[in-house]
């Protein structure tokens, strides 16, 4: 008998279910998974954009709203210069077509390396309740670009701000045939409080998260 069988048998014996579970019990479990009902939710009578800005800022992200995606190179350049950061960035392929020459930022669309300083990504959506970005992995959305560099800049259309994590899952189920390999919810720069419970921004991931919201898609 395999370890799996032994563990399952122990579980069934403990629950007083010696034999295989009955068909109706199985069906009830499968039905619950298929229906995936929502639990109780906290009050959400706020405006999604205002709430997202407020929560994201509270979690030490910075937020900028610009009219359209064409303005991203200039907005990125403005941010990097103001922060006196490197003007070289690794980007997701989706942003390759933008006119980067105007802002003076040198970009490369490729996988991130350990020594890249700035990473520019999109996001699948953003969650207003907590001020969180939701990123999914894929051939054109490499996960490491938001992780290895010291500065992470995310570009998100305002229309992709959803209320809560529940809406994010619904959107994912509607738009992706299967669960992506990695779904990462990002809420501000990496941090640690391991030394004397003193919060320090910048641990193994980015030191800074800058979110550029584009008002039109």
């Amino acid at each position, binding site marked *: 008998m395999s370890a799996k069988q032994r*563990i399952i048998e122990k579980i069934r014996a*403990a629950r007083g279910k010696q034999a295989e579970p009955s068909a109706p019990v199985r069906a009830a479990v499968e039905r619950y998974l298929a229906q995936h009902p929502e639990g109780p939710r*906290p009050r959400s009578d706020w405006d999604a954009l205002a709430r997202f800005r407020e929560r994201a800022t509270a979690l030490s992200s910075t937020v900028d709203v610009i009219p359209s995606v064409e303005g991203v190179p200039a907005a990125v350049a403005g941010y990097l210069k103001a922060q006196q950061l490197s003007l070289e960035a690794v980007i997701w392929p989706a942003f390759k077509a933008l006119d980067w020459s105007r802002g003076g930022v040198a970009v490369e669309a490729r996988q991130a390396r350990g020594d890249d300083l700035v990473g520019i990504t999109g996001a699948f959506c953003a969650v207003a309740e907590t001020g969180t970005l939701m990123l999914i992995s894929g051939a054109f959305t490499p996960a490491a670009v938001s992780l290895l560099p010291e500065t992470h800049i995310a570009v998100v259309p305002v229309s992709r701000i959803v209320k809560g994590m529940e809406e994010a899952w619904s959107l994912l189920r509607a738009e992706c045939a299967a669960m992506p390999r990695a779904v*990462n919810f990002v809420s501000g720069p990496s941090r640690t409080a391991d030394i004397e419970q003193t919060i320090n921004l910048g641990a193994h991931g980015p030191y800074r998260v800058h979110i550029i919201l584009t008002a039109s898609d």
Partner: protein
Amino acid sequence: MQVRSMHFKAAASQKLADRRLQDALRKTQGKFVAGRAQAILELENFDEIRDAARRIRDRVLEHLDLYLEQFERNATARGAVVHWAENAEEANRIICDIARVHGVKKAAKSKSMVSEECALNDALEAAGVQVVETDLGEYILQLANEPPSHIVAPVVHKSKDEISDLFERHHQRARKESVPDLCREAREVLRPHFLSADMGISGANFIVAETGSTLIVTNEGNGRLCTTMPRVHVAITGIEKVVPTLEDVTTLLRLLPRSATGQSITNYVSVTTGVRAPGEEDGPEHFHIVLVDNGRSRLLGTDFQAMLRCIRCGACMNHCPVYQTIGGHAYGWVYPGPMGSILTPSYVGIENALDLPNASTLCNQCGVVCPVKIPLPELQRKLREKQVERRLRPWTERLALRLWAYAAAQPEIYSLGARLAARMLRRMGGSERLIHRLPPGASGWTQGRDMPAPEGKTFHELYRQRSAGR
């Protein structure tokens, strides 16, 4: 991890006398408590959400076999390999085999309490695999060769100075004094390990039956690095961690970080499903999930089943006056504080941890803050009952209880005894009416305080007197 819970009393005395530890505990005490108190105010329906969370965990435990099978089916469909381990040795053997098959020389590890249960690092090192802990706290402990003292903040017992010393000695760089400098140095030292490790090891805060995913909540980003960069990812977790759906995870996530660190959400919530897809440039090529029983199934169907609801937030220890006073190491195993006082005897044998359920005033702070409403003091009391039933208490205690039971059933003898005791204690109290030292057997009570002496008359005597005078 080797069990040292049988030495609780000696260890606790030692910790009380440890000036450095007491300083460290005093510095951090209250931060978690205040953080949680503030964070739960964000949820006006906090208690409703706790009830929902409890129901989710109970639903899983009711049909644990079926949810685990669903999880395995969905994880396997995405190219993950699911392993089952009845105990720590089996889990270690499985993971060492995985390392051997994939030619693993180095593993970068994210924090996992189940791996501490198994002493996985020792097993891997013995198999010739270098293991690098990458959570800052766990990394510090690896340098110091110490076990964690808290399940969320493993290095809460160490001062910044001690950490500066450790880094200076091990990194051989100029001594860093400030927290940001220490964190920067750890990042610089650990970054190459993430990039060169063949295997990433993580735990799982939850595993999702609906999608076959494993999920970790982290702040540092090391968990993401461990599950993204190396070509092999191994997730090790307990069989009770399964949660039915993504919506259920969402409900639990509203409680976990708030109860743990006072955050409304952790910096990262990372959900990993299956292996690298065609065309993807990152993510592991091999994904192994090890489901560990190690005593958990034994709790099902018993008085202690509610303990399996636990989502490992650590709120019970943060709020425990005993934990706050002695720290986590004295408890002698992976899980300290109130949750450990149930889990340790349950997993490693009630006879190996006799003091833990007794190291509690039953004040119920832990029960009040538990996000999934585990009645911790009630379970502690049940463990005490079990100790008595199994005759595991010392003979002196059993004799004393038997004498008391005999006297309590004989009103004459009982009231005579009470009268004598009240008079004697009054005399011992002297003019100060304080007893500085109780006789052997009860002397522990007066070690750090005085006992107020009784007035000299028993309740019965006063009652009779007053009703006569009415």
